[in-house]
């Protein structure tokens, strides 16, 4: 098993929590894992990217070579496109369609979504809407994790256990809210297949 994932978003959106949860799940599965993330200056509302590599055999590089990523998982459509050069020809993009506009020159949303739709393997929907309906807006990142789950070789139960590990210090209600968001995201992704 080998799964190279690019996680992308805007600083503060909760991209790194996804990496932490998948990391906890992978550790339970005795998989090898490397996850390079960005701290410091980039977190002040700038673009954030993390390389997450899972494999049943040892992993050499912390960074994913371009053209080799199996998945791009993004909470923002322009950020999904920013890293598209990393995607392998068979790779998939899982992204929310909701733009995060914190710059004056944010491009036309329809053009961005149009470009995304030209990729062969895309799962894209409004994850904020799903999060609001099934959990809370803040759990959008767990909707995204759910939407990516069918394409990651880890059982949903193991990922849910990862969610529990991360959120249990914040109380059982937080755990349940985030698991609900995860399940909702996963269901929609499966229905779009």
């Amino acid at each position, binding site marked *: 098993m080998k799964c190279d994932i690019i996680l992308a978003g805007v600083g503060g959106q909760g991209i790194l929590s996804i990496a932490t949860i998948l990391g906890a799940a992978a550790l339970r599965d005795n998989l090898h894992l490397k996850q390079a993330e*960005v701290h*410091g*200056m*980039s977190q002040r509302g700038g673009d954030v990217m993390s390389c997450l590599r899972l494999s049943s055999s040892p992993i050499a*590089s912390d960074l994913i*070579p371009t*053209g080799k990523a199996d998945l791009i998982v993004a909470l923002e459509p322009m950020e999904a496109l*920013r890293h598209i050069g990393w995607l392998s020809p068979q790779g998939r993009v899982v992204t929310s369609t909701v733009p995060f506009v*914190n710059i004056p020159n944010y491009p036309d949303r329809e053009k961005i979504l149009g470009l995304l739709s030209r990729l062969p393997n895309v799962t894209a929907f409004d994850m904020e809407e799903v999060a609001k309906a099934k959990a809370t807006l803040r759990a959008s990142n767990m909707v995204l994790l759910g939407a990516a789950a069918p394409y990651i070789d880890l059982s949903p139960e193991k990922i849910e256990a990862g969610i529990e590990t991360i959120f249990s210090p914040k109380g059982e209600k937080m755990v349940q809210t985030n698991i609900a968001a995860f399940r909702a995201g996963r269901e929609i992704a499966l229905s779009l297949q």
Partner: protein
Amino acid sequence: MNENKPTDHSASKVMKLLLGDEALALGAINAGLSGAYAYPGTPSTEILEFVQADPTARERGLHSHWSSNEKTAVEEALGMSFCGKRSMVSMKHVGLNVAADAFVNSAMTGANGGMLVISADDPSMHSSQNEQDSRFYARFAMTPCLEPSSQQEAYDMAAYGFGLSERLRIPVMVRLVTRLSHSRAQVATENIAAPENDLTYPANPRQWVLMPGNSRVRYRELIADQAKMEEESANSPFNRLTGGENSSLGIIASGIAYNYVMECFPEGCPFPVLKISQYPLPKRLISELFAKIDRVLIAEEGQPVIEEMLRGLLDTPSRPILGKLDGYLPRTGELTPDSVMEALVKAMPSLKTDIEEKVDNAIASMREELKELVVARPPALCQGCGHRDVYAALNAALENYSNPKVFGDIGCYTLGWLSPFNAIDTCLDMGASITMAKGAADAGQHPSVAIIGDSTFTHSGMTGLLDAINEDTPMTVIISDNLTTGMTGGQDSQGTGKLEQICLGLGADPSHVNTIDSLPKTFEEMKALFLKEFDHKGLSVIVARRECIQTARRHAKKG
């Protein structure tokens, strides 16, 4: 105890998912650390933060407070080492400039208890003002340097480094880079922490008093010890020459560059590879490699340290060398698996395999549109940040001056250079706002304004302020106080609650030391205060205060 044996990762170990920074910190705690010292700086901050949160460290009461700056941190760690205890000090690469006096001279005093000086470099300048390579400092000070290539090595090198430091009686540098500091992987760790060292004093007390007579003796010893250090490197478990049947090319790969080389050869590297993770460079291993191969590619993260040494001034090595100085690898920015692959293909065109294939047609056809649709998203000051209000009022106050100059500093407020504020004219190093504003005022500049954060002020601003106070230089110093070290994530700031006292204690005129809240509603008040102090023909200090919105949120949650 044979510390040169490779570490045994057997079943008694506990697997943990750790950042490179955290692995090194835990390795140190488990190796009997007694105290950790640091000033926050990306990508090194998580080292001390890990020690602060670690249960064993808390139970043992290990020192883990933040220091005022990197120089005080190195000296504090050296004092602990003097008493025979194991200490470590961590900083970002440019912090080592601040600590350079202490670090370089600590090679002369030597260490008693094991001492690690951890410097985290930031190639690609993700969060820094330059790409300087700390290995130069180790070479300059003539200390050994360890450069882990993985999180596991970072963990193992803590115990190994303490041992090395105690064998050679000298501080040992550990050089990290962003992609190791901030990358997570499984690490096999010990279950129990080794006991701390007992309090013991140096066997060679003269050496610790660096008066010329003592220093001359010690310097000869330090030079003589270089051979021992090199022998340690040649026998190091972290330096390895591995086979490879194809002798047309050899590879020297240091630190994490080794990983990028291995990434290119999932089935195993066909060329001999010399992995370097301990310095000084082991001449013996390099000679062995050179004897085997026709040419050598040098892959190292950062500046071409190994490459320049092996090329020499006249560039007449015994085997042709390929690397950063001849364009095989990029001279700037961090290495990537791609740039290393390109260098290998350029050196050995027969390696060209699927490079073209991997560019997806769908993506290739989008190139032009991507350029138009993917725009930069620069970082910005948070909504609700007091620095925003300071800049808004400052810009308004400066509006009617023809040539105002604002000297900036290092921290979140450096983002004030960006749109919409475009408020600062310079950013050099920690503390330079005050001293550059002074130099400018000395040159006749008016208004000459310095803007500095609270933590940067106590790091390196206070001494410069004393210069300005002593000459009553006509300039305005704004300390934008958010009660924390913001940019690195909100660590304790050493001057919290006493900034005004510090300024007054240094001798500032009390009638020109003012405090004001930096809020949207105090805009007019701030503007008026700035204008009033610009008119003062001497030094003014304005402390503009508002808690960092990030730490305020955290405090509110804890409630």
